[in-house]
């Protein structure tokens, strides 16, 4: 019987052992070729090749691991530096490194998406014209917007971390009652006073609202303050104007009454003289005429003073504005060199108004327009329904116009640029128009003429 050959003496064993050593040292790409004998040793080689293939597909080589770790570190550093745009490649192996890479990519996407919305929110806060201050639960300032810095004159670092009361005027913060705000949850439009860095006072309308976190605990307070400086100035101007008007009204009333009697006496005396003097000399006749004319002028001035002083509420009836304007035009002495262009809408609805007061309104405006054209020109009158509930009447002249510096003053009592009259006509006009719930506007340029527009509401009920 022949001895079986010793397998261990087969030279292929050495090659197989080398192959195993290569695999163990990490060279998973290594493969061994078959001898083609189809024996046990070839079987072992096949097994080892398959094993290498399987391990290679699942295990990452050291070099690849180092490289992927480097890439991962780069992205982590980028994210920590607020750069959320870097992405990692993902291989087809779907192994742990791929999972980490995918996780970091998704993290970058989510952070990028939230940054976009954060930037958008930041933009909204910084674009606000009202002052925004956010404080924490200890009422220390956490966030301020640009409007706050601009109006109060601080830098962000000067405000953040400081107590909220630093922006309030003395006592104003105490009066506000932050403890009450926390209890109720919000304050709406409370008037209070902020103080700037250079100690100027700013009246504000303050609204505050408590912020809660997800567990319902107080996270802070959002404070929004609207600067009321301009509104307060306008209110003060209005109050002063009203006081002035009231004083003038009293004065006007007093003067008017006092002058009526002596004027009456002069008028009667003139009338008597006209009666008793049968054929007065031309000079005397002329003088008496002047006297009558000036008495009439004085009476008109006194009537204006009394109208201004009395300013009764309008007694409203159903009136057609077109009829009032036609009547005024027919009574007004319009020189021949002034062309009248009337574009009155026939379909204009009737309005509830005091016809006497409106006659005075449009009479004043038309008279002023005629007087503004001493060398002739064009007078245009239009009427239209400007809204479903309003009509508008415009009176346009091509006269001398009103200088810009006088435009704001023409409705003030006692303002006049005429030689005659005491400047109450437009003040009365404005009072009558506003008494009807309407408005009057003027547009004018010196040398180019003026447009007065009166807007009046259309009401339904007749008042008695």
């Amino acid at each position, binding site marked *: 019987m022949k001895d079986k050959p010793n397998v261990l003496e087969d030279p292929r064993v050495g090659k197989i052992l080398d192959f195993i050593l290569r695999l163990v040292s990490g060279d998973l790409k290594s493969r061994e070729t078959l001898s083609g004998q189809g024996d046990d040793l070839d079987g072992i080689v096949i097994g080892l090749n398959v094993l290498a293939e399987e391990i290679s597909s699942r295990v990452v080589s050291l070099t690849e691991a180092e490289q992927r770790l480097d890439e991962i570190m780069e992205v982590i550093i980028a994210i920590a530096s607020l750069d959320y745009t870097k992405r990692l490649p*993902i291989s*087809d192996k*779907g*192994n*742990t490194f*791929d*999972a980490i890479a*995918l*996780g970091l*990519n*998704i993290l970058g*996407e*989510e952070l990028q*998406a939230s940054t976009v919305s954060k930037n958008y929110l930041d933009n909204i806060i910084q674009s606000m014209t009202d002052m925004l201050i956010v404080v924490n639960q200890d009422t220390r300032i956490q966030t301020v917007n640009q409007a706050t810095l601009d109006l109060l004159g601080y830098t962000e670092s000067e405000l953040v971390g400081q107590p909220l009361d630093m922006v309030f005027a003395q006592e104003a913060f105490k009066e506000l009652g932050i403890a009450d705000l926390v209890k109720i949850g919000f304050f709406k439009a409370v008037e209070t006073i902020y103080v700037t860095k250079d100690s100027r006072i700013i009246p504000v309308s303050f609204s505050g609202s408590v912020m809660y976190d997800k567990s319902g605990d107080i996270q802070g307070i959002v404070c929004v303050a609207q600067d009321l400086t301009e509104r307060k100035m306008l209110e003060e101007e209005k109050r002063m104007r009203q006081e002035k008007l009231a004083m003038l009204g009293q004065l006007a009333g007093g003067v008017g009454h006092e002058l009526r009697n002596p004027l009456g006496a002069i008028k009667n005396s003139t009338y008597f003289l006209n009666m008793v003097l049968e054929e007065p000399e031309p000079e005397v006749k002329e003088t008496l005429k002047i006297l009558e004319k000036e008495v009439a002028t004085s009476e008109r001035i006194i009537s204006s003073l009394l109208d201004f002083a009395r300013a009764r509420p309008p007694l409203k009836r159903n009136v057609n504005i077109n009829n009032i304007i036609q009547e005024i035009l027919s009574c007004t002495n319009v020189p021949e060199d002034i062309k009248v262009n009337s574009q009155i809408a026939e379909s204009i609805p009737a309005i509830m108004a005091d016809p006497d007061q409106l006659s005075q309104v449009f009479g004043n405006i038309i008279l002023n327009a005629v007087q503004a054209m001493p060398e002739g020109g064009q007078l245009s009158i239009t009427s239209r329904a400007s809204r479903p509930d309003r009509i508008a009447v415009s009176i346009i002249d091509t006269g001398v116009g009103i200088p810009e510096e006088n435009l704001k003053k023409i409705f003030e009592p006692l303002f006049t640029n005429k030689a005659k009259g005491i400047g109450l006509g437009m003040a009365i006009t404005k009072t009558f128009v506003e008494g009807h719930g309407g408005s009057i506007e003027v547009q004018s340029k010196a040398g180019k003429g003026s447009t007065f527009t009166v807007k009046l509401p259309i009401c339904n009920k007749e008042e008695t």
Partner: protein
Amino acid sequence: MEKEVIETRTARVWLGDDGIIRIVALPFTNVALESIREVNVHLKVLCKGKKNPIFTDIRGVKSITREARLFVSSEDSVNVCSAAALLIGSPVSKLIGNLFLGLNKPPYPTKLFSNEDEAVEWLNGFVEKEEF
């Protein structure tokens, strides 16, 4: 009855005899919004206006975009899905499954499985039984 298997760019989709919809992601699939929408169109046809439990094998998914994840939790998806079982295997698919559950919080019952039989058994509880 031979079931109709629909092949899209990224998955194979069919309705099983047990009333459970099957979606199997093709290998090395990058899932974007367009591919999800494509699958959703077929789901609507298969579901015929009803909500069905859906078994999804995501082991072949390599990556998924944010828009695709958001779409799967949106109204369009909710209208066809009564419950979802995700079959995971590789670390990547495990990450995707967990991210979907944790970040996108689908509004229907969703569970991750590493075994298909267990997944199907769980979904059977959501199959609407026909009444006679």
